[in-house]
């Protein structure tokens, strides 16, 4: 019993931590320190996941007690750690950002932690019912976070869009699951998968279900053409919440996508180019990469550009998901590794963006950043570094992320898809470079306020942590590669 509790300790840690923080916020008179507490809870979650991983989750007796509702395996442990890392970085950023911009209200951290809890459930769910519960738990928290700047019309607008479209997507997903239940009589993914393996994919109702599920998943990972909510919600939300959406929500959505597609639709017929989901997903990937990159180049707001860039990264990730058709383990390992590098690079970029602004003068547009590289190199250098990582310049983490995903696509024989992805990464380099250009090569327009960075130990800590991870993953990815391969091994093949 105790060992079983140990097995789900990351979940317990974050869930209980969220409750305690809420209590502390409500009843304690001490202000401040909430961010530190929330970050500590998250990093404790990472530590718990690492502990369970090292103990050997397979050796824990009675680990199946939770299944099929919650599957405690290396895959979910990897995502526990990843999501907690993303959430922890967001908490650290919030610790600097919220007080600076007069938004320091304690419910931010409880919402964020509960959302993380939902995301962790989502990545561990082996049954569509828990999956939906996790999804809603995660999403409701994020809707609130997106609307956190109550005074800002833009924030409310973004949040409302996000809420409406998100609910719509959830409904589609639910409808898809219902149809599948009708075909197979199962709500657990494994059971659905077994039934689909018997050739149910030719059943029109199953096809309908699959399509609805794909649409729902595409909404959640914000793939084109289901991405409309992303820029508005990302721009309106306070930047730490944006980071959380870009990192943790997207990570959990990809975990859900991999698990649903590979478990429920992993049979040779459903996962084939001729009669299954891969071609649809490949087209979505091509659209996502191309549209997002082209649109991102036209943005005037850095935050919006980063939103589109996160959509583009979803496109690269989808290339990896398509490649799972060929070799489930290798390709999904690539996706997991990409998520890891994407998490640290994106978190670093948002953190640096936060650092570049201060009260009343948040750095949002390119113009806001003009000349900052010359006046405040300590704020600009990390920003440049993380953007280069996002652009995939070696030897940073982002380069290796792309490397593995594209390699699995080439191994799988998706040459055209890979070429399109490569060309897109060049287009992507353009708008990342633009930030560098403004920071280092432009001066602010005459009369425009000159950006001054804020000072915050919290944000600096988040940046240092991300930078260390980006460098470590860029120079020596061997260890983390073996981790993602073990995590992806649950898909066999």
């Amino acid at each position, binding site marked *: 019993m105790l060992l079983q509790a140990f097995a789900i300790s990351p979940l317990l840690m974050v869930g209980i931590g969220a409750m305690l923080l809420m209590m502390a916020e409500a009843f304690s008179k001490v202000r401040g320190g909430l961010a530190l507490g929330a970050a500590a809870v998250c990093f404790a979650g990472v530590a718990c996941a690492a502990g369970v991983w090292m103990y050997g989750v397979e050796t824990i007796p009675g680990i199946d007690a939770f299944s099929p509702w919650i599957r405690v395996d290396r895959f979910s442990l990897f995502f526990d750690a990843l999501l907690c890392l993303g959430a922890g970085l967001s908490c650290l950023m919030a610790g600097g950002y919220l007080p600076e911009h007069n938004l320091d209200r304690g419910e931010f951290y409880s919402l964020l932690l509960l959302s993380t809890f939902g995301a962790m459930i989502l990545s561990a769910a082996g049954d569509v019912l828990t999956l939906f519960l996790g999804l809603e738990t995660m999403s409701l928290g994020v809707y609130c976070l997106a609307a956190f700047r109550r005074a800002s019309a833009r924030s409310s607008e973004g949040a409302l869009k996000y809420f409406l479209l998100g609910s719509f997507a959830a409904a589609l997903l639910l409808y898809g699951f219902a149809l599948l239940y009708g075909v197979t009589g199962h709500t657990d993914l494994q059971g659905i998968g077994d039934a689909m393996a018997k050739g149910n994919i030719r059943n029109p109702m199953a096809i309908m279900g699959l399509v609805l599920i794909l649409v729902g998943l595409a909404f959640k990972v914000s793939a084109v053409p289901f991405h409309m909510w992303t820029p508005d919600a990302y721009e309106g939300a306070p930047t730490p919440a944006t980071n959380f959406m870009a990192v943790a929500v997207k990570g959990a959505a990809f975990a859900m996508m991999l698990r649903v597609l590979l478990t429920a639709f992993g049979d040779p017929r459903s996962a084939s180019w001729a009669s299954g989901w891969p071609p649809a997903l490949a087209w979505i990937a091509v659209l996502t990469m191309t549209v997002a990159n082209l649109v991102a180049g036209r943005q005037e707001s850095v935050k919006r550009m980063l939103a589109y860039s996160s959509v583009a990264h979803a496109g690269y990730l989808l290339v990896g998901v398509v490649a799972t058709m060929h070799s489930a383990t290798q390709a999904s390992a690539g996706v997991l590794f990409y998520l890891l590098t994407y998490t640290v690079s994106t978190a670093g970029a948002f953190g640096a963006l936060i650092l570049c602004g201060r009260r009343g003068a948040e750095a949002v547009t390119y113009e806001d950043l003009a000349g900052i590289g010359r006046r405040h190199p300590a704020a600009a250098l990390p920003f440049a570094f993380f953007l280069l990582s996002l652009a995939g*310049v070696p030897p940073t983490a982002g380069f290796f992320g792309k490397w593995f995903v594209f390699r699995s696509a080439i191994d799988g024989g998706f040459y055209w898809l890979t070429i399109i992805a490569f060309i897109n990464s060049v287009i992507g380099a353009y708008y990342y470079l633009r930030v560098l250009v403004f920071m280092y090569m432009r001066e602010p327009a005459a009369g425009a306020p000159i950006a001054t960075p804020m000072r915050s130990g919290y944000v600096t800590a988040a940046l240092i942590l991300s930078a260390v991870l980006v460098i470590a993953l860029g120079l020596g990815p061997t260890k983390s590669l073996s981790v993602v391969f073990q995590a992806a091994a649950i898909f066999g093949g």
Partner: protein
Amino acid sequence: MAREARQDVAPVAPIGPATLAQFLLVGAIGLIASIFLKGALAVVAAGAVAALMPRRVAHAPWVRVALAVIAGLTVHFVLRMWPGADAAADAVVPEGPIKESHTLLSWLIGLPTVGALAVLFLPRQAPRVLKGFTLAVMLGTLALSIPLLSVKMGRDFHFNQDVVWLESLGIHYHVALDGISLWLVLLTTFIVPIAAFVSFGSIDTRIKDWCFSLLLLEGAMIGAFVAMDLFLFYVFWEVMLVPMFVMIGVWGGTNRIKSAIKFFLYTMFGSVLMLAAILYLSYTYSRVNGGNPSFDYFELQRVALRRGTQVWLYGAFALSFFIKVPMFPLHTWLPDAHTEAPTAGSIILAAVMLKMGTYGYLRFCIGLFPEASNEYGASLAGVAVVGGILYGALVAWKQEDIKRLVAYSSVAHLGYVMLGLFSATSSGIEGSVLQMVNHGISTGLLFLLVGVIYDRRHTRLIEDFGGIAKVMPLFATLFIIATMASVGVPGTNGFVGEFMIITGTFVSSRLGHVSGIQSVGAAIGVILAALYMLSMVQRVFFGPITKEENKHLSDMNGRELVAAAPLVLMIFVIGLFPRIFLDPMHDAVARVVSDYDARVQMHPANALEPAKGYYQGPVKLLPRRPEAPKVVTMAAAAPEAPKTETN
């Protein structure tokens, strides 16, 4: 800059104790040099330069000393490297297995890179410290690169270091050097300090960022020339882009940002396609090698591919290199980048970075895809002649901006280099490699001199000048020497390279029956070069002085002179003693040519694919080459790298 120059010229020092001390100083330095260098002639040369240098040239004692040292070192270099006078070298290097350091190349890469990181921790407010430190690191790298010459280069690769980096992916840190990359590495370590030194006179903003970029760039360029693992090569190739992007974008001219972005995106577009090809090649290798991937050059060379795949891979690699060279019609980024880049950026870009493309083609396209190189070589040679040499020359002729003119002349010169590579004859390739060095030196010097005049007048338009040979005689002399080298007048370096390339093209059997026409086209290019360069020289330097501003220009100052001196000397050293440079590369080029011929003739043409010589069966591995270093499999450096004979 102008202020400094005036200070140098204005005081006319009387002969007195200062002069005496100056001569004594030179004498002491000569004495010390004679002890260490064991070359009396070098000391004599140094002393002669020190004593005879007219005062109007050597304004200050330190200029005199520096010029003397440069002259002495050059003489010493020639004496030491001259094949007949090898006795001294033999006495130093004992017989038996050659002792060579396996970490030397890593030092060469590491020193500037670590130096770049160290610059970040130096105070921004102390430009003298930053400049001194940067220059010291660069000179240290230059000194470290001299031992590369002490090993007799044969067909083999030397200074081999192979360390497993990422075991599961087959990625190694593998660096090695042969007679071809030897000269390119030396060119890099030679040019970069010169560029840095001259830039310190004209760059006065953000010195710290500038020093960081220069050092990082040097490390990455050396790395790209010696990387023998394709992954490592790609890493260096990409890392190189960022500092150059920053250099153009921050310290460039008015249109700098557009040019910088254009430069970055052009190159990156090519390189991602190359990355895709590298990934595919490694994947193919792992399929036939029992699932063990490798990115090692010598391993991937063994993969025999059918035509269908090889052509695509060749295309991806070649596109990336052609953009970098740049070959017509992919050259449009180059004039913009050059026009906007600061002087040092232009020097490095022209002298070293463009060679990345030609070197890459020689090493990777010819080395990995010989059949495809053979198939397309003839057509591409036509592009190199018409689009590079002739079109580049004609466009250069019409330029109004001196720097743009020199940039287009680069397109023409690199057309020669590519033509020599396409001809795939021993003479052609040797000429190409030599011409890479030549172009680095003569175009580097031209850009340096254009920078000199730009610093004084802040214009580069030909029409703004005229008759300035009267006010700047020293400058005019050096510029005309550089022009002669660029045109290829006998006695200068350009002649040797172009002559070898043209003869190599003429006798080439790979270019089919048009090789004669192509060599005639290349020869016409030489005439055109004389036309556009000399007409520019005539308009800038001779005739009456029409502009009032030009009447009181100061001649070259000490810094500029010291920076230009080594380049001027090297023009004549290569022009008069080309054997020094050709001998070490001879066997390596012979290896490239014989491997190439062997691969192309290995599979005779058949009815399906006539006269192409492609391999037709399923993908397989050829036997290992004799010159390939042993593969390292454990996570440790290979202490010895004996040549395996497992043919």
